[in-house]
Structure formats: structure tokens, C-alpha cells
């Protein structure tokens, strides 16, 4: 049965040890793209938490009740892409109508996430680790929290980087990549962390 410790272990793993950005290098595109300002980074992070959570919750029953039943587990990746793409579209339409304030807050980041491989990554890993529904949900949401942590940390470093003097060849994107690498190294320090 699920224990709190187990879920806490999953959460800790998703946020720190197996951080989607710094340990698994998934979702690097939005990570580099929208990390120039802390504000926008927050927006993106929130949207990712939201979509990852919803995607985990929806993909689990599809995998469990449809794919496994018809022995189509090998079609997982294709199915998940389909599910995530239509899900994000649907959620966008729904939010625009039902919760305009949330829609405005998430803004352009919501459709951007459709192509975020971290979202596909989280649902694929849910099945690989044979997580149940609750575990999938926890892994999805905390994976998003890990993304938020990573992108906000990175954005705050980048904001200061603007004023740092660095060699001409490194200005802008190159130095940002170097920074991301250093942050990933720092996150390596969490590897091996266990709850049990």
C-alpha cells in the first residue's frame, strides 16, 4: 500500500535527485527560452506543474484501461503524444472560458508546453516505474515543482548575468549554457539522497 514515506520519496526524487532539468535534461527548450526574467520563469513553471499533473492523471487510466488491455503498450509514446497535445488544447479552451484569470496568468506558456518533452517524459516514466494513479499524480506534480525550482533558480542567476562582464564570445546564450551546466553539477550533489 501507499505510504506517506513512499510518496515523499517520489516527490523528493522528482524535485531534487532526478530533477527533470538538471538530472534528466528534459524540457531544456523552454528552460533556456523563458528564463530571462524571474516573472516569466514563474509563469512557465506554474504552467508546467499544472500540465504535468493533469497529463499524469489522464495518461494513467488510458494506459491502464486501454493500452494494457489490448496489449498495445508498445504504442505508449505515440498515444501519449496524442493525449498530451489534445489535452493541452482542451485545457486551454476550457480555461479561457471558465477561468479567464488563470488563463491570463499562464498566458502563452500553456500552448508552448504542448511540445515540452518533460511532460512526455513524466508520463512515460510513470509507466516505466509502474506507478499507480496516486503515485503518478504525485510524480507529475512534483516533477513540475522541480522544473519550477530549476527555471526560477536559473532565471535569477541569468538576471544578474546581464550585468556581469564576460568575454565577448561568451555573451548571451553561451554563458547561459555554461551557467546551466554549473547548476546541473550542483544538483548532482543530490544524487544518492534517499528517504528510507
Amino acid at each position, binding site marked *: 500500500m501507499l505510504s506517506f514515506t513512499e510518496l515523499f520519496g517520489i516527490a523528493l526524487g522528482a524535485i531534487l535527485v532526478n530533477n527533470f532539468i538538471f538530472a534528466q535534461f528534459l524540457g531544456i527548450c523552454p528552460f533556456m527560452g523563458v528564463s530571462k526574467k524571474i516573472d516569466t520563469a514563474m509563469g512557465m513553471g506554474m504552467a508546467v506543474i499544472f500540465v504535468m499533473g493533469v497529463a499524469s492523471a489522464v495518461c494513467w487510466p*488510458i494506459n491502464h484501461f*486501454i*493500452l494494457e488491455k*489490448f*496489449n*498495445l503498450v508498445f*504504442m505508449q509514446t*505515440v*498515444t501519449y503524444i*496524442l*493525449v498530451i497535445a*489534445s489535452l493541452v*488544447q*482542451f485545457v486551454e*479552451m*476550457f480555461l*479561457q*472560458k*471558465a477561468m479567464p484569470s488563470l488563463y491570463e496568468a499562464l498566458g502563452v506558456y500553456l500552448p508552448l508546453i504542448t511540445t515540452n518533452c518533460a511532460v512526455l517524459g513524466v508520463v512515460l516514466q510513470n509507466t516505466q516505474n509502474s506507478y499507480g494513479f496516486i503515485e503518478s499524480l504525485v510524480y507529475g506534480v512534483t516533477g513540475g515543482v522541480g522544473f519550477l525550482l530549476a527555471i526560477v533558480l536559473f532565471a535569477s542567476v541569468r538576471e544578474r548575468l546581464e*550585468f556581469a562582464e564576460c568575454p565577448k564570445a561568451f555573451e548571451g546564450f553561451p554563458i547561459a549554457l555554461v551557467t546551466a551546466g554549473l547548476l546541473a553539477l550542483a544538483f548532482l550533489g543530490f544524487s544518492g539522497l534517499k528517504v528510507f
Partner: protein
Amino acid sequence: MNTVIAAVVVLGVLGAIFGLILAYASKAFAVEKDPREEAISACLPGANCGGCGYPGCSGYAAAVVAGKAATNCCAAGGDAVAAQIAEIMGVKAEASAKMIAQVQCTGGCRGHEQYEYVGIHDCAAAARLPGGGPAGCSFGCLGFGTCEAVCPFDAIHVVDGVAKVDEEKCKACKKCVDACPRHIILLAPYKTKRHVAITCSSKDKGADVRKVCDNGCIGCGLCAKACPKEAITVDKNLAVIDYDKCVGCGLCAQKCPRKLITVDGKVPEVKPAAPKAAPAAAKPEAAE
């Protein structure tokens, strides 16, 4: 073979279901958008300068359609765009007064620096230093070009250490006004003929201004006296012009002993009747 068929069928059905759901959702959750909004967006400049006070051009278009904004708020587009928007909205265009950003500093404090500054080439950074930056005058332009960097229209440039506005290019989007850490840029109604400007912000007393600036306003009030329309008042040691009254005669600029009142961007030649040796403040010209 069965597996292949099953895969095709299952995915096909899934795809069809999602497609139907989306098709239904797009109808059920459709948010009605006024077609006028798109039409207005199309005729706006699209620079997203924010000068109208709304987040971007589409934000302004939405506000116009919602009746929250006037049709002439787009400073960048000017009267032409205002007329187009008015036509779309079916109301009469109100001509918008052209505004320009005006730098209230002559740069006369160059050469009176408190110390040498070699840090980041940015006014906001320099202004955080003790004494509010290297400039001797606490109301003076720092000249590091933060305004130049934020201007989306390439209309403001630092020339000889002080920011200068290109009146033709300036669209009054207010970006520089907000960016200036010294708050010495303001928006002024632009008179295409004989625009008079008092280019100083210093509220220091006359004697203090003389110490740190070659031509800062000392609040002498000669301009106010010279103005036939009473368009100039001296408040807190600084002459201020009321553009509603100014007629652009330029008499104030003639009288100003500190030569900081400009007409069409230039300090006019002083005519024979030489001003007294007494200190004078900036003198604006009265206009209508």
C-alpha cells in the same frame, strides 16, 4: 497481424474521440471575440510599446472595443491610426495632441562630477551609488543612455553626455520617462512651430545650482516676468512652463541669463537689450 489492426483501430478511435471532444469544446467554450478587435489590432503599429497604458497593441484594441479606452491613445500611430480606429468603432476621431519626451537637463553639470565613475554603463546602476551617481547636480542627466537603450523608436540619444530627444521620431511612448532613474524626462505637448522648453529640473537654490551646473535654472523668475501670457511660474526654485498658455513668443528665452530655455531645440540669440547681470531662471515662452 491482429496486433497491427488493434493498434490502428485503438489509436484511430482514440484520435477520433479526442478530435470530437476538441471540436465540441471549441464550440462549447468559444469565447466571443469582437471582429472589431482584430480590425483595430491590424491597423495599430504593432510595436507593443505600451505607450497607451495597455499591455501591447492587442490589449489596447481590446480596451477600445470594450469602451474603456479612447480611440486616440496610440501615440505611436498618431492621428492617422486614431482616424482608422474611430472609423472601425463608428465614432468621430478626436485629434490627439502630439506629445514628446523632453529631457529636463542641459548637461551643464558635465565637468562638475563628484567622482570618476567606471562601473556598468547604465544610469540605473550609477544612480545607486552614494550621492546618486557621479553627476555633480542631483537633478542632472547621468548620460549613460538607459533611455537610449529602452527607446523602441531610436528617438533619444546621448549627445555630449546628455540625452537629447529627436522630436520627429519620438512617439511619446513614455518608456524613457519610466526608465530614467533621475526622473528628469517628462512628456510635453509638442508645438510643431516654436516649441519652447525649459530644460532644467533642479529644485536646488540658485547658489547651489551655480556651483554644480553651468546653466541650470536658478529660479530668478526673469522668464516669468517676461512672459506676456503668464505661462511661466517659478516653483521651488525652478521655472515651469504651462503649455496651455504658451504661445511660443520666445521672450523668456531672450531673458534667461542661464540660457537654458530653448525654442525649437535651440537657445535663441539674445537681442540687443542685454539682460541685467542679475541671475535669471529659465524663461519659457507663452503660448496658447
